[in-house]
């Protein structure tokens, strides 16, 4: 390359850095970080482990109290819905940009995928809900035409919701396995100690033939697409079967997709916070940069604006409609006992992200998006508490057969959580984080093969009198 004194590029040139040495350096660099487990890691793992034990105690305590009093189960269902909204939605951050062939997602896609392992915990949390959910014989409105169509099983919601959630968990595990397979081969060949041993077992003899790469690429695309379809469907089920049908008069065709949208927003926030911790404390500062925060920050801003759109569309119909049943639903969720909680949620999930993320300096920073992701996650947890605790409070009042809820039937105060509820909430959220942390001891938190693949597509070229970086895309 020839430069003149003004640093202008005078002769055509192209520079790539895809040598064996560079590829090895990328592998070695990432494996070096992966192999280190600091004392601080184990301190936090122990802390989350202790919290998780409290969660298990709360879980057993809750089960021993029985399923008769539905009104006390709101917090339990809320934490289940919260985990489905966050950890189960996080893999979408890997799936969508990968389908769109964007490069900025490479350092964060694995972290998003590892969250699928927490789906197993969600599945355990879901099991008691099968017993909690009343059969259709209680006379509630449902999707299942029960009572109108002979032969419909009274446990239709239980059967289909269970199959959908199991399907989602299976898809998540498949996606993670497909993505990790080449990295297990790296651990087998380059790793040390128990990681080498387990890498060898889990790589299943992966050699990296063209046919294997082709198979892996296309399968990841199909499984990812199915994961997205199933995620939306599962949220449709959760929001209808565990929420809406328990409140007489809550008829809102938009709400199931609102629930799914909330999951996408919280999923992005979960990954944003994960990459913040990986960067600041996990040693991945050189891999997770401003590009990732900027890319996800834009998504978070868009999804936060959509949060308002979805909420306002439903609210407007109810508010303008003014039917007594709709007034009662608004009283329950917005204007009544949950008013201050609602205002807090509104600020945390919409106002704060909106008024801060519109500014480039906040969006193109590390701390700004991470703080706002925390705000979104706290807001989402409170939102799940508001909706599920209120709905199960109503479910406990045996109004299922009524077509609409009267104003005098609306609970006047928020259900207080019991100690077991607090244990479950803290314990299972900590349990999900613990699963993620422990998984990163075996599975590299930053995708090795995708980082090396990027070297193939990156080049610095002459552009008139200056240099620009060009990122290619595979066909």
């Amino acid at each position: 390359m020839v430069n003149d004194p003004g640093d202008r590029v005078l002769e055509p040139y192209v520079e790539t850095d895809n040598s064996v040495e560079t590829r090895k350096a990328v592998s070695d660099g990432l494996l070096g970080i992966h192999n280190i487990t600091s004392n601080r890691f184990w301190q936090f793992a122990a802390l989350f482990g202790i919290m998780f034990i409290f969660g298990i105690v709360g879980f057993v305590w809750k089960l021993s109290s029985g399923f008769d009093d539905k009104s006390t189960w709101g917090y339990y269902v809320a934490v289940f819905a919260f985990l489905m909204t966050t950890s189960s939605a996080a893999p979408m951050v890997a799936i969508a940009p990968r389908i769109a062939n964007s490069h900025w997602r490479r350092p964060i896609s694995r972290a998003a995928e590892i969250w699928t392992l927490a789906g197993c915990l969600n599945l355990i949390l879901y099991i008691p809900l099968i017993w909690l959910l009343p059969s259709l014989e209680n006379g509630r409105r449902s999707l299942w035409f029960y009572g109108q169509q002979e032969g419909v099983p009274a446990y239709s919601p239980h059967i289909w919701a269970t199959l959908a959630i199991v399907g989602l968990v299976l898809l998540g595990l498949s996606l993670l396995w497909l993505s990790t397979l080449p990295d297990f081969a790296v651990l087998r060949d380059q790793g040390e100690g128990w990681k080498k041993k387990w890498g060898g077992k889990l790589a299943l003899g992966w050699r990296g033939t063209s046919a294997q790469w082709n198979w892996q690429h296309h399968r990841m695309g199909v499984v990812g697409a199915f994961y997205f379809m199933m995620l939306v469907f599962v949220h449709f089920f959760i929001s209808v079967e565990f929420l809406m049908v328990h409140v007489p008069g809550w008829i809102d065709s938009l709400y199931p997709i609102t629930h799914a949208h909330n999951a996408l927003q919280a999923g992005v926030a979960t990954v944003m916070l994960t990459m913040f911790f990986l960067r600041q404390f996990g040693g991945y500062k050189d891999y997770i940069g401003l590009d990732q925060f900027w890319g996800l920050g834009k998504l978070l801003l868009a999804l936060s604006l959509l949060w308002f759109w979805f909420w306002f569309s439903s609210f407007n119909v109810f508010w303008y409609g003014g039917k007594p049943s709709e007034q009662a639903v608004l009283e329950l969720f917005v204007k009544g006992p949950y008013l201050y909680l609602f205002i807090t949620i509104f600020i945390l999930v919409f106002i704060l992200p909106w008024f801060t993320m519109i500014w480039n300096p906040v969006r193109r920073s590390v701390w700004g998006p991470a703080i706002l992701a925390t705000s979104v996650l706290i807001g989402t947890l409170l939102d799940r508490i508001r909706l599920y605790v209120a709905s199960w409070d109503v479910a406990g009042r045996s109004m299922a057969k009524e077509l609409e809820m009267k104003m005098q039937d609306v609970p006047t105060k928020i259900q207080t959580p019991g100690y077991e509820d607090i244990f479950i909430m803290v314990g299972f959220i900590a349990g999900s984080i613990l699963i993620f942390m422990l998984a990163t001891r075996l599975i590299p938190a930053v995708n090795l093969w995708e980082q090396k693949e990027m070297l193939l597509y990156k080049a610095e070229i002459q552009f008139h009198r200056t240099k620009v970086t060009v990122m290619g895309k595979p066909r």
Partner: protein
Amino acid sequence: MAKRSVLGLYSEEDSAADALDNLREAGFEEGEYEILTGVPYPEGTFGEAEPEHKLYRWPLIGAACGFTIALLITAGTELAYPLITGGKPILSIPAMAIIMYEGSMLGAIIFTIIGIIFESRLPRIFMGAYSEKITEGHIGVTVTTEETRTDIAETALNKAGTDGEIIRGWE
């Protein structure tokens, strides 16, 4: 006859592509040689044949099976108990749609996962000719053929300038 495999390692993509050309000239056919890499190169980078995939077969068959079963469950129930409700037809799509959608999805998911396991040809018990240098960044060209032809393969691989010794293995 027992087959053996030989592996040549290359630092440069062009050398690996030359090795494939040499193998073709020496009479080896597609299917006898493979490229091994630690990263997914774009298809055809080394002049190799683009792998054919029957990707959509499994999910489509699964979805069709799931849809059919769901259709039979829902339509069968409605026809077995033919009660007219609210003036709607006996076979009402809205009452069937959710189960048919989920049936299709579950069928597609189950078949896709079976397909993944089946098509992956994993686990591979014997690695054949393989080197750990591949996951470090080297490009491997492996030839799996009759024992009598391995010398020809080795010559073709060496002609392209291998990086180190030829590695041999049993299949």
